[in-house]
């Protein structure tokens, strides 16, 4: 009989889902706290808002591709929305609600940063209206409030509403990726409430790593000078992730059986090089040291910022991959 191997596809889905949610949270915090408006251009908000939708969409497509049944019999997909006893149904609802919000926020942020978009849209519409005469008639059929097309939308007001709703769903998405695994009783390594907490913190960390340390730093190398408290935030989340990861492995070791065997695979087994070098070394210790240095000096170098961001993102990917790949099911 065919066996289901959970490997890279699921790990990448969990990673992209978490990082997308984390990027949204990062941008939403900048938006809601007003940090986004302290300067003319906030690349962190632009990056976080812009990447969250595509990242989660790619992750969801990978999940559908991995499951297979959705491709073979797509008419069964609606049934997945109705089984409320299943964690997957919760996740589907969260993602279904969250994805449009991500894209809407990305579009609003883009239009806010590039006001010319609205002018361009208006010009294109006029051209289209001249070419196809029925379009103005259709336009007049719309209710009057919808026919108003202001040159400048109240972006800040709209984005506050979108971010307020989206940040709740972003937390739900990040936690759900952990809950999805933690309810699998057949794999003792996953069957722990620490996993959702670890995935949430990792999602926030990778979201910061991608939207602030990588994308924003590449676009604006001076960005670390703007937000001097950012290294402290980084240190907090990296430290919290280390604590949760340690707790996760210690609890697994103490439980014995397959959980301990899985943890040993990560710590001293065939996954140990990846764990110690890429996750702990490059993904946690190095970024932590960079941010300690940056906090003391109120800044750090362009390259070290980029590398610490890369380390955090790589660690987020491998934390999920190791947890998925080292899973040993209960002995039957």
């Amino acid at each position, binding site marked *: 009989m065919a066996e289901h191997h*959970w490997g890279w596809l699921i790990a990448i889905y969990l990673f992209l889902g978490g990082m997308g949610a984390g990027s949204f949270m990062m941008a939403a915090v900048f938006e809601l706290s007003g940090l986004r408006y302290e300067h003319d251009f906030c690349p962190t908000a632009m990056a976080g808002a*812009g990447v969250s939708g595509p*990242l989660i969409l790619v992750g969801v497509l990978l999940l559908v591709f991995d499951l297979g049944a959705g491709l073979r019999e797509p008419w069964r997909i609606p049934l997945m929305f109705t089984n409320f006893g299943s964690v997957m149904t919760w996740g589907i609802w969260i993602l279904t609600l969250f994805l449009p919000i991500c894209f809407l926020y990305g579009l609003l942020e883009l239009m806010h940063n*590039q006001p010319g978009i609205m002018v361009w849209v208006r010009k294109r519409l006029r051209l289209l209206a001249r070419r196809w005469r029925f379009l103005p008639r259709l336009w007049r059929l719309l209710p009057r409030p919808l026919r108003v097309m202001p040159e400048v939308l109240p972006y800040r007001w709209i984005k506050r509403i979108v971010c307020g709703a989206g940040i709740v769903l972003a937390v739900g998405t990040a936690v759900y990726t952990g809950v999805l695994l933690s309810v699998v009783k057949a794999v003792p390594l996953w069957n722990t409430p620490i996993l959702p907490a670890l995935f949430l913190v990792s999602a926030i960390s990778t979201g910061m790593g991608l939207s602030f340390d990588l994308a924003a730093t590449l*676009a604006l190398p001076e960005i670390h000078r703007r937000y001097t408290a950012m290294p402290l935030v980084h240190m907090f989340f990296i430290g919290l992730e280390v604590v949760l990861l340690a707790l996760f492995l210690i609890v697994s070791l103490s439980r014995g059986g397959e959980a301990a065997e899985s943890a040993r*695979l990560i710590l001293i087994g065939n996954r*140990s090089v*990846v764990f110690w070098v*890429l996750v702990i070394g490059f993904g946690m210790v190095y970024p932590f040291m960079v941010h300690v240095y940056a906090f003391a000096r109120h800044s750090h170098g362009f390259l070290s910022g980029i590398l610490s961001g890369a380390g955090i993102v790589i660690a987020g990917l491998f934390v999920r991959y190791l947890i998925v790949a080292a899973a040993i099911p209960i*002995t039957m």
Partner: protein
Amino acid sequence: MNHNEMHLHQVRRWPRWAVVPIGLGLAGFAVVLGLILEPAGYALSPVKVEPTATIPAVGYGRDISDGCHDCHFSLPALQASADDPVHAEAYLIEPESIHTTHGSLGCVACHGGDGEVADKETGHRGLIADISQAHPEQCIICHQDLPDQVPGDELLVPHQLVESKIVHGEPGNLFCSDCHGGVGHGFDPVSGEIYCSMMICVDCHTEQEDCSTCHQGGDLEAQMTGCDLCHDSPHDVGEQLTCPCCHTSVETWQEIDASSHPVELPGRHGQVHCFECHTWPNFKGLHYICTDCHRSGHTEWGDDECTQCHDPGATWDIVASTWDKHVELWDMYKGDHLQVKCQGCHFETYTGLDPSCDTCHSLPQSHDESYTKCWLCH
């Protein structure tokens, strides 16, 4: 211009939206890097033991079971291919059953074989009649920590023992299918929509040669004499009474021997279900006042205790012969009057009735109007 300023100058010429593709590109790059680095890390690792990174799973086989449906959904098709057409119906499957939870896994998921060929012999090669017997661990993948007491049914079942034996690979002769055999074909033991007859249990107990499969230690003979081997009484009278004292059927609990009731249940009262009068499960809160269940047809007359006038073993139409107060109210309540139904005199109400004979009787033509007191002669 230092290095940072030079870099800043270059970057600011990018459009603002460029951070989005940069971020997406970096995310993609991280994934590619991970895919490259992981095998490298694995190659450098000191231990080369491949973990069993596999979730135990029942193979999904619905879309490769169409060949099974072609025959097993159609009696003529089964009869045409059967060695003994007389028994072909036993292998007929309701098409609706493939939409149940287990049925949706597909025939070959549990029964093996090849569901994509038309040839019967090839299709049945490697057939597994009972997966819970051949590969019981396949059931345990989903069904773990099953309760030893079925909620709501007070039924004791050795789920944990069976599960433990399967998990530890110990031999046993009790299988999931012994009780849940039709689970893939429409039988749903959990919802309770289709009941499993106790005779299935009794037959199985009779057939089992090795009682220790389920019963480890203890005085088995003593246990077998009582229903409490499998059933946990929900009633507080369970310690004083055994189940057969009241329950008469092994098919349904509701069949009760009314004569076991400590108080006589006259008339139709012996036919009502116990918990229409008592409170489940412990017979407390007894409803013994007539109006708890019955609604009086004459609220202007009498109180809640109907038995003062009515016989609880008879119908409501006749006043109980033991009710002597009716004579005190109307001294003509005797003779043929006793056979008249209440409404025969009480046309509208039970109060203010005129006791004169002509209320009911008309004066015969042989009598003139001066005869008003019938009872003087009759």
